[in-house]
């Protein structure tokens, strides 16, 4: 066994399921991390409580895996897809949605005008890789502030993480992969071949449907989301505002009513 100490950087890579460069001796450890990530989540075939099940209505709710592109600026890609493919109208809708939440809510509730609704539906079912979006971020939200539970009144702790800038997108619409699984590349190809946005949307939707039939749930997480998000969050430090389990400043989220709760 190579007894060379595991450095902090190597530890970070291992915890993310990657083999540190020049450390082939740590391959089994990296494999272990990945297996644990998969096993611990796959084995968790859990069911929600009755109250939660009623809220989620899972039986009637289709599955929408979260986008799994760790190096892609997700919302920016989505907006660009909207404006580039479906015309200014939808881009305006999305912009309104981003500003007020209303249009996005309406869209998600299936209440947009037919043309916009169709485009909205296509939007959330399509991931289109773009280039040149390196500097844009999705994260303009406030950072969460973590306050430890004050169950005994003596151990409350405050802290918060700084907002995390979104990872830099690296995909391009001219990707040369010929793999049939490269849906994004295929989307780009179709785009070049059609004139009508609606026609393009239909083709993309068909492709997405075919592609989606081969997809299972994506657990982000690290986790089955192949933890596509693993290891690159970049959170550091503390800051004041945001979401807190128990907030003392009135901001964010607080977990009420659970302190001292009995089973």
């Amino acid at each position: 066994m190579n007894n060379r100490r595991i450095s902090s950087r190597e530890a970070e890579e291992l915890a993310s399921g990657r083999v540190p460069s020049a450390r082939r001796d740590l391959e089994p450890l990296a494999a272990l991390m990945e297996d644990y990530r998969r096993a611990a989540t796959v084995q968790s075939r859990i069911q929600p409580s009755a109250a939660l099940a009623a809220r989620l209505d899972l039986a009637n709710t289709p599955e929408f895996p979260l986008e799994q592109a760790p190096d892609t600026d997700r919302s920016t890609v989505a907006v660009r897809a909207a404006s580039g493919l479906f015309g200014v109208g939808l881009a305006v809708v999305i912009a309104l949605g981003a500003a007020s939440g209303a249009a996005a809510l309406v869209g998600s509730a299936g209440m947009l005008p037919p043309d916009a609704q169709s485009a909205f539906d296509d939007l959330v079912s399509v991931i289109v890789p773009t280039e040149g979006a390196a500097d844009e971020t999705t994260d303009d939200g406030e950072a969460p502030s973590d306050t430890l539970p004050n169950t005994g009144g003596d151990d409350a702790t405050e802290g918060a993480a700084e907002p995390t800038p979104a990872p830099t997108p690296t995909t391009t619409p001219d990707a040369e992969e010929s793999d049939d699984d490269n849906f994004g590349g295929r989307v780009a190809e179709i785009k070049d071949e059609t004139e009508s946005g609606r026609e393009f949307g239909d083709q993309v939707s068909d492709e997405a449907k075919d592609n989606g039939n081969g997809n299972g749930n994506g657990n982000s997480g690290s986790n089955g989301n192949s933890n596509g998000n693993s290891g690159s969050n970049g959170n550091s430090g503390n800051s004041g505002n945001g979401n807190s389990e128990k907030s003392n400043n009135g901001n964010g989220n607080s977990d009420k009513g659970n302190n001292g709760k009995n089973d």
Partner: protein
Amino acid sequence: MVRLGDRATVGVPFETVLAAAQSDAAWAQGTLWRTFAPSVHGFLRSRGSREPEDLTSEVFMAVFDQIGTFRGGEAEFRSFLFTVAYRRLTDELRQRGRRGEAEEWTPESDTRQTASAEETAEAQLGDAAAIALIDALPVDQREVMTLRILGDLTVEQIAQITGKRAGAVKALQRRALENLRKKVSDNPYPSSALQR
């Protein structure tokens, strides 16, 4: 044409799901449950929750009750989610301690793990071995590793959740990995897992 109501969709941006979840859209909250519940459950189970499934539901009920005021992206949401999970777990462990019940779960006492170990498929054997190895870590190391692996949280986020210093979390992570490396070297772990 694929619509929101279809099952066959490519991944949905987290921000889209979050916005809809904040408006109480069932599909969006269901998506968050399906995506993150296994990780939360895995963490709670590994830390000794007696009823990790029930506790996971409690965590998500609390999260959904507060989600309207949540601000941030997916990374912040993970941190928020596991913060709630950690607090609920801490509450449970404290209550059990006050009732004089057995404190920590141990791998030997978990019959569920035994049942998993009896599965014969190669991948399942490897998975069972992975769970057993992590579960055998000292509790502090196990906590850090499960939050890191299952929660995909950074050292700083784990430090905030657990109330430890970042340096202490890093040290626990490193010690856990050294611990695991020694065990793996004593009992070779199938590195072919990486090639699966």
